[in-house]
């Protein structure tokens, strides 16, 4: 016996279900196709010919692809660490101090989030050529220009996340530590950083994935010796769309999704803890 549909049982209405399905198809059909065709046993990636893992092997044996992947990871790691430090300091600055033009500073700080990437890319290109940033440094310093560009668009994300977390900070905690004899630095190290940690982790994850898959800005700042993974995939596609490209992309999707899921999970866990602590 089917129970009647209640007034708020939207999930059981046919039209709602239909809409949800359409949304899902739009969102995920291309990605599912991409992943499916990474197993396609065909050189030309149009018709399904049969299942194979060959192209994963091929992708993993492609030295220039691996090198690009290594570059991407290195840049992501370096820019994440710098972004976390810079973003946390900016967040603390905005939270802790009052100074003239603070609101303006806060807005300007978040600007890289909203500026179109293409503009950032062109700006970076112009900037680095204008200051004559050396492009022939030995690895990993050859990646410095891209890393700087990545820091500039990912640290605001860290700052925004950490700033939001600091809103919930009970200032009496810092005062209590100070009252117990802690210096400013000890208060920061023992009380503030542990409190910010979930925000730092989540912001860091965000910065990492943003850096890992950034194409536009990187494209403008990379040279022939500093090809990153997305740029490499793009150049491969220009010749032909082989399942190798699909395989490489699938690997990137898996890494990105896993990192994002971890970031969300850490954030939720911290929130639950904070709620329980607040009683």
């Amino acid at each position, binding site marked *: 016996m089917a129970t009647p549909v209640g007034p708020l049982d939207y999930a059981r209405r046919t039209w709602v279900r239909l809409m949800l399905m359409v949304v899902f198809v739009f969102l995920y059909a291309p990605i599912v196709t991409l992943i499916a065709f990474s197993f396609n046993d065909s050189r030309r990636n149009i018709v399904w010919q049969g299942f194979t893992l060959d192209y994963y092997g091929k992708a993993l044996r492609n030295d220039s692809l691996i090198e690009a992947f290594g570059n991407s990871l290195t840049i992501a790691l370096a820019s994440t660490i710098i972004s976390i430090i810079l973003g946390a300091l900016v967040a603390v600055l905005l939270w802790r101090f009052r100074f003239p033009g603070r609101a303006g500073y806060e807005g300007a700080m978040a600007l890289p989030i909203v500026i179109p990437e293409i503009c950032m890319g062109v700006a970076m290109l112009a900037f680095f050529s204008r200051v004559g940033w050396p492009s022939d440094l030995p690895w990993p310093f050859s990646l410095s220009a891209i890393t700087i560009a990545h820091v500039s668009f990912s640290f605001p994300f860290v700052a925004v996340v950490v700033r939001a977390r600091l809103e919930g900070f*009970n200032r009496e905690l810092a*005062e209590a530590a100070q009252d117990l004899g802690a210096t400013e630095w000890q208060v920061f190290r*023992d009380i503030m950083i542990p409190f910010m940690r979930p925000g730092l982790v989540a912001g860091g994850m965000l910065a990492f994935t943003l850096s890992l898959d950034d194409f536009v800005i990187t494209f403008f700042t990379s040279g022939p010796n500093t090809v990153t993974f997305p740029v490499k995939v793009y150049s491969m596609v220009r010749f032909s769309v082989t399942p190798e490209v699909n395989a490489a992309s699938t690997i990137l999707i898996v890494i990105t999704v896993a990192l994002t899921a971890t970031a969300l999970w850490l954030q939720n866990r911290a929130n639950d803890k904070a709620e329980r602590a607040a009683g």
Partner: protein
Amino acid sequence: MSAIGTDDTPIIEISGLSKRYGPISAVDSVDLTIRRGEFFALLGPSGCGKTTLLRMLAGLELPTEGTIRIDGQDMSMVPANRRPVNMVFQSYAVFPHMSVRDNVAYGLRVDGVPKSDAWEQAEEALNLVKLGGYGPRRPDQLSGGQRQRVALARALVKRPKVLLLDEPLSALDAKLREQMRLELVNLQESVGITFVVVTHDQGEALSMADRIAVMDHGRVQQTAPPAELYEFPQTKFVADFIGSVNLIEGRVQAGGNGQVRLLAPGVPVPVEIEQENGLPEGSTGWLALRPEKVDISNDPPADAARNTVMGTVEEITYLGEVSIFHVRLDDEHPLIKVAIANVDRVTRRPFTWGDRVHLSWTPTCGIVLSQ
């Protein structure tokens, strides 16, 4: 009320202390002396500056003017981390990411005490607040009352010269609050440290403190032991803030010589009050009369020395242990509250709405205030 360990040497001397935020004075030229080993309360309505004063003692706010001396040393401008005082915060401010033991040991650790010593002392402090064995727990596993005990232990473990408590009982439920009052007093007696408590709850201040400073608008109105504050208030504000009071405005007919005679509009006969400090003749005075000190009867009282007026019962409020009778005097104006203890379980109310009654009080019951 403990007098144990109290001697007359001051531990805190505050003189001319002010804290201004722009044009607003949160604390306005306060002079105060707190004695060694005393349980001292700062009492006042919210916004009266009591918390700002406490925070200045802690070093969390710096004064605009004036000096604070702690144990003879000028501490006015010394930052919080270098003062020999510790504070229990209103929110308790227990560090959520540390175990109970690490919380309590934190103050010792930042002073460079080795971990094992710090933990040992932390355990002693936890025993003192009856939380022995709670060391390994996390703060989110504790109740509000237990978290407060952690905050207490954390402050006491540093053996401060003065312990400051900001509204220590306000976040607890009524039953626990009453129990904690007693415990705080016992704790203070056993450790012998001077306690300074900020509270807006007069019952709390009266039941715990050796002396109370009543504050209003950034100023100290009166500093006295609880009973003196209740029986001999010096200002209308103090009389009204501590307990319940009937305030009747009038003109002083004759003052001085231990006797004040007040003529109040609406009160048919002049009120005679015995008090030491007389008021100048012709000045405005306020009769402050506690509801429980007024007698209510059907017939005029036999004792002619009593002040007696007549009125009509207008309202009766039942409060459990007492009933409050609101009596309107004949000449319309003053409404006098009278508290009658409900001694008998069976309600045998001798007076009811609309009854004509005599109200009387002896000359030593009330007090006439000049401000």
